[in-house]
């Protein structure tokens, strides 16, 4: 005796087909609905990122007479100042990123070792500068660093130096100002990634015979690398596009790419001149991100999704 009522064979198959079709239709409807949900953001991405960048690229191919030409790019090689600006931009970006790492890593490490309550209070102090405009902070640094500013006055009053140190209106001013502004961008992702490091892993390291230094070097540091990499990438890319701080702190002697874009856009009557600078920066930035990915492998890029 069969437990189940016997259905005519063909009916069963038809029912199965019906169900398959219904399931398929459901799946289709669901993906359409998801697409519909996504479409506003897809449209936004298209309208405010893809189209303008494409437009920028298109514009960069036309000279002042409106003719198709490579003049906007040829200028980089004809005029020495563009190469110089380019080199300066990357030099500043490297120095500032380096300074952020040197200052930010120990800071993030200290924060990650503090008890939760103390750490959140300290984190507020890390984030606090975000609430002040970049302009205000840059002027504040000017007041502190210039020849008759706080630091030089103190040092001279204390007799440490007789001539004021050249801290503002040059490269060091730019580096100090930018490092201050960008430090939180390094510390926050780094701190977040350090917090996810399992303390048991460190204990395991010591238990297995690695001293504190070896444990740090072989376990803590490699595990903090994803956070460090994302912080470094963020800081470096932000550096490349900096305007206000180098304009105010550089004394006109540290010309960075964004400043050059502004100059070029007002100097030439075709948008292409400035657009070409934008395209170059974009391409170089993307190339660098690619290089970062390649150098740090999947772990660094996994940062964006997992950690």
């Amino acid at each position, binding site marked *: 005796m069969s437990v189940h009522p016997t259905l005519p064979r063909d009916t069963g198959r038809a029912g199965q087909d019906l169900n398959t079709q219904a399931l398929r239709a459901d799946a289709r409807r669901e993906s359409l609905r998801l697409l519909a949900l996504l479409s506003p953001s897809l449209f936004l991405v298209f309208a405010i990122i893809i189209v303008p960048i494409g437009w920028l690229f298109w514009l960069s191919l036309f000279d002042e007479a409106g003719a198709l030409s490579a003049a906007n790019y040829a200028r980089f090689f004809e005029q020495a100042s563009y190469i110089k600006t380019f080199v300066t931009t990357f030099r500043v970006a490297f120095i500032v990123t380096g300074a952020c790492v040197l200052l930010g890593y120990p800071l993030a490490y200290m924060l990650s070792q503090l008890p939760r309550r103390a750490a959140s209070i300290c984190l507020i102090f890390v984030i606090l500068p975000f609430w002040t405009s970049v302009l205000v902070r840059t002027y504040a640094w000017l007041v502190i660093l210039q020849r008759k500013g706080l630091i030089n006055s103190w040092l001279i009053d204390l007799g440490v130096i007789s001539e004021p140190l050249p801290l503002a209106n040059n490269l060091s001013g730019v580096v100090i100002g930018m490092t201050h502004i960008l430090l939180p961008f390094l510390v926050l992702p780094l701190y977040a990634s350090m917090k996810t490091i*399992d303390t*048991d*892993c460190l*204990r*395991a*390291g*010591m*238990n*297995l*015979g*690695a*001293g*504190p230094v*070896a*444990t740090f070097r*072989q*376990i803590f540091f*490699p*595990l903090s690398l994803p956070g460090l990499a994302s912080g470094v990438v963020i800081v470096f890319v932000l550096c490349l596009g900096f305007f206000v701080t180098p304009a105010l702190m550089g004394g006109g002697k540290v010309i960075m790419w964004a400043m050059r874009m502004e100059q070029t856009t007002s100097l030439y009557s075709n948008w292409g001149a400035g657009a070409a600078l934008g395209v170059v920066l974009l391409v170089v930035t993307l190339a660098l991100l690619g290089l970062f990915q390649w150098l740090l492998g999947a*772990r660094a890029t996994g940062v964006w999704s997992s950690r």
Partner: protein
Amino acid sequence: MSIAPSALPISMRRIEKRFGSVAVLRDLNLDVAAGEFLTLLGPSGSGKTTLLMILAGFVRANAGSIKVGGDEIITTPPHRRNIGMVFQNYALFPHMNVFHNIAFPLKQRGVGAAETAERVEKALDLVKLKGLGERRVDQLSGGQRQRVALARAIVFEPRIVLMDEPLSALDKGLREHMQIELRALHRRLGMMTTVYVTHDQREAITMSDRIAVMNAGRIEQLDRPETLYATPRTRFVAGFIGESNFIPVECRNGSVWYEDQRIHTAAPSPAPGQHLMVVRPEKLRLLTDAEPASGVNVLNATLSDIIYQGDSFVCYAVLRDGRQLTLRDYCRSDVLARMPAPGRPVTLGLDAQDTILVAAD
């Protein structure tokens, strides 16, 4: 793995640990014999994990002494203690593959590449993970991670291995399988004194040579599993290991009384006063009219419920004073045949040698 240095005993004396004003361990003394598998068993907050952390060196005791084979190690930093440890969450290094995880302790000890490869291979073989050396940690199942953690803890042939609830993250079937395997491995390696922490009494009973039952920062009882089960010395131990019925009894004039009924006991009568009689469910029997023989305690009760569990059954019976007792027996046909219906009076028998007396709290 074959050239085993001889195992070392551990001797802990007057260990004290406070976190702020909270005393976690108080005046704790524990000896672990060389090569022994000793389990620290207790509920959470009993101090068992803290004791393990002190042994490993991650937590510094406020006072006390720990000697391993006669050498004082209480101030030795963890990386110089040469103690292997398996962590609850395994604590495998996620940025290294299986091979490098297991090779890690060898690398710290400056073992050469060829010997490292050989020993890691052996360890992998021992935990039945041969050929998985190149796997990334996140490609392993829970059971495999557990085995890697184990291999990593023993590959450098430590004299002592600590295990902190290493099986708690595994599902039931795998856990029971690993219990047996761990036990077998311990026997095979022979030279490793093992201290194992768990809150699972079955696990403790299955695996251990001896069990230290911990409660509120103290060791309540330290014995072989069967001794612990048969003769728990405190109500806590009786309650924590196995199931127990507790019946209040009084000791007067050299004999033991449950209300006005004299209780036959095998052990010499304890000090006068209130005590608790521990009755294991499987030691109670349903009596027929033909019995009882002498030396059997008879308890009259009313059957309230019977629950069949396939191979066995559980009866709930209520004594005259309203106290409920649990009885467990196998489903033999003769027992089932004379099983009364719920609501009927029953007579329960308890042999004198199965009575256990512990102090009333």
